[in-house]
């Protein structure tokens, strides 16, 4: 598996085989048979269905508050787990299980925050549990680190994308506004905040969106994998309710997605995302409060 990255274009044609069609019909029953008349592949119909469910869950969160959101995303999570078991081994199962991390992360990010804990530790708590979820998805699907883009790439690319990420931190700060991480003053507080942001924002989010979801999407949709990861990123950032910030996030996610697809590695996007988050959340609030 290590010699062929799933972030790179797939060798086989995306999921349009008769077996996938049959599996889709079995899984979705009458709805599947009715959709069979449409010209879309089972994989496209699957991701359209999952995407619309996730949008509904996110809308419930925004309209009903944290409790309703946790409930909606918990149901979504159980549905995706059941669907992944029903689909059986294959690329559609990989996609379903990879996308299941999204409602899991949303449940965590709605239930874990507490007023007594500084915001910087919210990132740590959510990120730790989220990374554990990603590792367990990798174990379940027998994915190696290389399969999710954890492979070497050129230093020049890492430095370039990292520098661009740092520059993009300024518009992110201006558009998204200031977030007080509550890490306190002093070098120790700054070092802890920097480490948490680099690992649990930069690494965690790129491993989820580009490493897990985009690689699963690339197996099924080829270039559509980038679109899938951008859609997932936008969905998870939509709670900001700031259209300019959401457009900015979509553009940055597209850039990182293209970089990951071209190189077959998520190391450069991790560097870019970590630099962006570090500038946006730690450096600029310090120098330009």
């Amino acid at each position, binding site marked *: 598996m290590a010699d062929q990255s799933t972030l790179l274009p797939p060798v086989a044609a995306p999921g349009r085989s008769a077996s996938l069609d049959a599996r889709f019909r079995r899984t979705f029953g009458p709805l599947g048979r009715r959709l069979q008349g449409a010209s879309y592949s089972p994989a496209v119909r699957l991701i359209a269905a999952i995407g619309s469910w996730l949008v509904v869950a996110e809308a419930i*969160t*925004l309209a009903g*508050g*944290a*409790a309703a*959101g*946790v*409930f909606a995303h*918990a149901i979504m*999570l*159980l549905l995706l*787990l059941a669907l*992944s*078991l029903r689909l059986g081994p294959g690329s559609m199962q990989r996609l379903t*299980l990879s996308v*299941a*991390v999204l409602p*899991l*992360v*949303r*449940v*965590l*990010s*709605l*239930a*874990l*925050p*507490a*007023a*007594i*804990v500084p*915001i910087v530790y*919210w*990132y740590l*708590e*959510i*990120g*730790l*549990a*989220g990374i*554990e*979820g990603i590792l*367990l*998805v990798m*174990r*379940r699907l027998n994915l190696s680190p290389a399969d999710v883009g954890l492979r070497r790439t050129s230093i020049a690319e890492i430095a370039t994308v990292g520098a661009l990420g740092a520059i993009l931190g300024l518009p992110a700060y201006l558009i*998204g506004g200031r*977030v007080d991480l509550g890490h306190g003053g002093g070098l120790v507080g700054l070092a802890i905040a920097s480490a948490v942001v680099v690992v*649990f*924002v930069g690494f965690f*989010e790129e491993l989820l969106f580009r490493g897990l979801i985009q690689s699963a999407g690339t197996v099924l949709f080829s270039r559509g994998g980038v679109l899938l990861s951008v859609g997932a990123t936008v969905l*998870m*950032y*939509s*709670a*900001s*309710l700031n259209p300019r910030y959401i457009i900015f996030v979509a553009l940055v996610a597209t850039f990182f997605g293209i970089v990951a697809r071209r190189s077959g590695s998520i190391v450069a996007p991790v560097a870019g995302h970590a630099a962006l988050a570090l500038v946006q*959340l730690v450096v600029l609030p310090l120098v330009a409060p």
Partner: protein
Amino acid sequence: MTSTVSRFVIDTLPQTPGQALAAAPAGILVFLLLLVLVARLLVGVADVPRGRDAVRTLDVVAVPLFIALAFILSTRVLEILPLG
């Protein structure tokens, strides 16, 4: 990603230990964890095809939620300790 949600929930966070104990989001999370653990136990002892796959699939949710439960409990202790 977390900052977008933090802005959303920050105004509705429980402010006292009593409110925190009664908070619905953490309660739903614990209920979900119990549901998944029970399902995992049942699948583990049942003689079903692909039972091992099902257990590993449920682990994807069970372990992160267990970590979350540990954080929730430690936070509740942090909130209650000053009262003692």
